[in-house]
């Protein structure tokens, strides 16, 4: 008997994992992706005639995972915010696997969105929206624990949605805070670290120094050196966008002057005109 090829095995596994949606109001459209805890499918809601995203545990997951998925659904349902994907429904499939249905986010993942080089101003606006959603969750005592560009969607209308609220607590190497990798207790600063790493990946190589300093401060290895809250991180980014000095970077006198000129070009053009007029008058009066 010849062994099965890799594509065949994959097709078999996909068929096995495919959720049995009999008894629900959904029909399967396509698989969108597979995460650490389950798979996400695009389904059609027959009752309301719209497409949704359905997260279902994979068949291999155990009882603890079942409870985690339920907990994730409950947490998401409690976080009503424009930046957090809303949960519409939750239940059990006929095969006993839990699921929850959420808004189908149309748009691009943040890493894909950033690859289109939308401009630093647009990226910072997206980043601030991301921070607002995470800060909202922190206010309600919820940590994300797995912030990375792949877990952020930028919608067709510029809306920013944070996905995959990692109840499992499994972070992603390169984005998770050192204390998370070490298995220590986490707090808001662990998500601040993730946001700092995201900001770092969004910045082009020639990014302004204050922005690089903000990303470095947020992603500092030592939690004490980071911004204590996401809100403070967001405020520093907003200050940069408004042409103000940022807390993470001590600028030189020259940089301060440049920033003030960039922030008030008309006023400095008028003052320069005054100086030119004065000089011309001086030259012509001699």
């Amino acid at each position, binding site marked *: 008997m010849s062994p099965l090829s890799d594509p065949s095995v994959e097709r078999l596994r996909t068929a096995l994992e495919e959720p049995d949606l009999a008894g629900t109001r959904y029909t399967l459209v396509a698989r969108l992706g597979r995460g650490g805890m389950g798979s996400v499918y695009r389904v059609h809601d027959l009752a309301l005639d719209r497409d949704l995203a359905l997260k279902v545990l994979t068949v291999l997951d155990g009882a603890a995972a079942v409870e985690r998925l339920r907990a994730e659904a409950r947490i998401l349902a409690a976080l009503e915010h424009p930046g957090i994907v809303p949960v519409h429904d939750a239940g059990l499939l006929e095969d006993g696997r839990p699921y929850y249905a959420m808004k189908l986010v149309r748009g691009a993942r943040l890493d894909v969105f950033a690859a289109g080089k939308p401009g630093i101003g647009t990226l910072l606006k997206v980043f601030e929206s991301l921070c607002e959603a995470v800060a909202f969750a922190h206010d309600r005592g919820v940590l994300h624990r797995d912030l990375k560009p792949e877990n952020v969607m930028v919608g067709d209308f510029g809306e920013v949605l944070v996905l995959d609220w990692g109840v499992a607590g499994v972070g992603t190497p390169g984005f998770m805070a050192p204390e998370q990798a070490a298995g220590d207790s986490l707090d808001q600063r662990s998500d601040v670290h993730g946001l700092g790493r995201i900001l770092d990946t969004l910045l082009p190589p020639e990014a302004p120094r204050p922005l690089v300093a903000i990303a470095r401060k947020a992603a500092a290895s030592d939690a004490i050196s980071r911004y204590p809250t996401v809100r403070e991180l967001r405020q520093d980014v907003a200050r940069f966008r408004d042409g103000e000095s940022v807390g993470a970077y001590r600028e030189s006198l020259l940089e301060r002057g440049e920033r003030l000129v960039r922030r008030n070009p*008309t*006023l400095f053009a*008028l*003052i320069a005109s*005054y100086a030119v*007029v*004065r000089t011309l*008058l*001086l030259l012509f*009066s001699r």
Partner: protein
Amino acid sequence: MNKPIFGLLLGGFLGVFDGLSALISAPETRPEIVGIVIGSCVKGIVAGLLIGLFDKKFKSLPLAIVFGLAVGLLFAYWVAHMQETQLGRHYYWQIMTPGGLLGLIVGFATHRFQPKGAIA
């Protein structure tokens, strides 16, 4: 701090600088420099106050700029005219051009910038 006070302070501050510039543009005025600076400062204060009051009422950047320019030119004309009657020489261009520009700057800045906590 409200707009008239902001305009008054800015006008007075720029007036002092404008008066001091006479040391470079007309060194022969050195003996009268204190009087020139005080006069220029008072002119700036009055112009800034008027511009601040105007902007408080109309709240329009173009109008603030036009009014600032007009007030700056008018006050500068008055000073130049006094110099002509007292010294017998006229400096209309030398006084009115920078004076008008300063009025324009005060008009623009009074409308655009407000110190923190300002009440228009």
